[in-house]
């Protein structure tokens, strides 16, 4: 069973030990199903293991209910795993909030809720910088502007509130905020899925370019195979809580080994595409 083993991904060892090591991750939710007295166990994540090298980029692909978002939330520390370990830089997630959290940051899907509506862009960045750096007020502002430039915004945006920004601009600010903590791992959970096509392209190119400039590893969670290809080196495909296939992104997209991956690829619309019916029940 492929999902139970640990997937060696990426080049053998160019950049030292993996920054993120996930081993045997399992998450069980207790739910009470309809018409039944007992609580049932819903296994959302089952035996997920992978490594992410420093400055690497790993995609997690799957449909809704595949467990991909739960994996991301466990790694970020927003959920506790039922079993398994997450090592960041070789050590388990620290109990101390502040130390643990700055190492792993996350950008969420919905651009309309990812920023505090009452905070200006600069205040949001400044708050994070004040917690994590020792710089004074002017130093922090300089750093905040640097971050804004990095994500394609500038001084004109610093005093705006989120409601004056478009969806794409908000996701850029969310990325800047995450980077302000100086993370080693940046989790992007469907971070471009809610954007219009023309804006999605802008943010994808930004993410690809940021990787060449700063030392940060991406964990890119998405349902969209074409999008994953733009920003990742390696990919794992998840289905019903398990990893069904893992390997270099290009290889998975061009010659998928697993049946489910093939089905996923076949379902992507393209000219001449004939959608097929499978008695799966939806």
């Amino acid at each position, binding site marked *: 069973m492929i999902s139970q083993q640990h997937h060696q991904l990426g080049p053998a060892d160019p950049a030292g030990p993996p920054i993120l090591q996930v081993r045997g991750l399992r998450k069980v939710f207790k739910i009470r199903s309809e*018409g039944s007295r007992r609580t049932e166990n819903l296994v959302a994540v089952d035996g997920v293991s992978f490594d992410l090298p420093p400055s690497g980029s790993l995609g997690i692909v799957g449909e809704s209910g595949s467990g991909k978002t739960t994996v991301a939330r466990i790694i970020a520390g927003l959920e506790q795993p039922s079993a398994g370990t997450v090592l960041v830089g070789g050590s388990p997630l620290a109990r101390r909030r502040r130390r643990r959290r700055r190492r792993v940051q996350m950008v969420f899907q919905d651009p309309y809720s990812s920023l505090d509506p009452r905070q200006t862009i600069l205040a949001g960045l400044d708050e994070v910088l004040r917690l994590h750096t020792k710089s004074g007020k002017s130093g922090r502002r300089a750093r905040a502007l640097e971050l804004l430039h990095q994500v394609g915004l500038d001084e004109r945006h610093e005093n705006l509130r989120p409601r004056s920004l478009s969806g794409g601009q908000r996701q850029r600010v969310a990325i800047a905020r995450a980077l302000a903590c100086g993370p080693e791992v940046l989790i992007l959970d469907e971070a471009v899925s809610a954007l219009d096509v023309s804006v999605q392209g802008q943010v994808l190119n930004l993410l690809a370019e940021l990787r060449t400039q700063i030392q940060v590893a991406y964990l890119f969670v998405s349902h969209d195979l074409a999008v994953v290809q733009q920003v990742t080196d390696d990919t794992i495909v998840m289905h019903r809580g398990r990893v069904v296939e893992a390997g270099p992104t290009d290889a998975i997209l061009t010659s998928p080994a697993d049946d489910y991956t093939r089905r996923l690829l076949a379902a992507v619309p393209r000219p001449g595409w004939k959608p097929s019916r499978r008695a799966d029940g939806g």
Partner: protein
Amino acid sequence: MRSVLRIIGTAAGTLLAASLVIYGALALAPGDPATELAGPRATPRLIAQIRHQYGLDRPLPVRYWSWLTGAVHGNFGISLQFRESVSALLAPRLPVTLELVAYASVIIFVFGLGLGLLPSLSARLNVLVTVTAGVGIAVPTFVAALVLVEVFALKLGWFPAVGTGTGFAGQVEHLTLPAFALAFSWAAYVAQISRASVREQQGREHVTTARGRGLPSPLVFRRHVLRNAAMPIVTVSGLTVAGLIAGSIVVETAFGIGGLGSLLVQSVSAKDNNVVLAISMILVVAFVLATTLSDLAHLALDPRIRASARS
């Protein structure tokens, strides 16, 4: 089925907790009922004797338990001010309060719901209903009582200003002004809620779907607007009945009606705690009954709650 049991269980728990709190609070109140009972010239011996006789020397939990077991059997002890059994005191008054509340409920149902649904017949009535309901809600029961007395009893002389009346017709005549005073702000509240929920449902996507399928408008209104708007209205009705019972205290005092409410006020002033306790508990039972019934009705109306109560 399990959700029904859960709702009933919650209601029973609420009642028990409420009785404990009210009993405890009154027991801890300053003042000694035995001294009061014995009268001003009582000797310490007599007081001690009375204390023993009524079990006041026993520890609080024991007293609570014996009160509770008595209460379930309709025995609420002796009234200090009337020197008679509380149950006997309450027996003739309970129906009066019930009639008043029932009368007011009918008024609320007819006028409140009627007013609230008017705007769905003609959008032009929307402002009228909003303003009427908005002002109506702000009129306290005792102000409504006085205005009704001033206009309909004193100026027009259509109804008597005070008293209970005899015979069914006499009772209805005497209870009309009190019932309208009691119903006034609650009818306005129900009108406002039903107007708002009908309006909200009319803007829902599923109503657009129904209209887009070419269904006749009365059918869309009945099956998709009114049916869904009924759920918040039912919830509010439960609160309304609870509020009516509380309001009856004020109305009975204002009109000098001999019901439970006026007796409660009188007993609080007279520090007649057994009566206060008994009436409070009867009122709490009524509130819990009203909210429980509306919870059950809600359950029957909304399949999603039936499902989520299970999960």
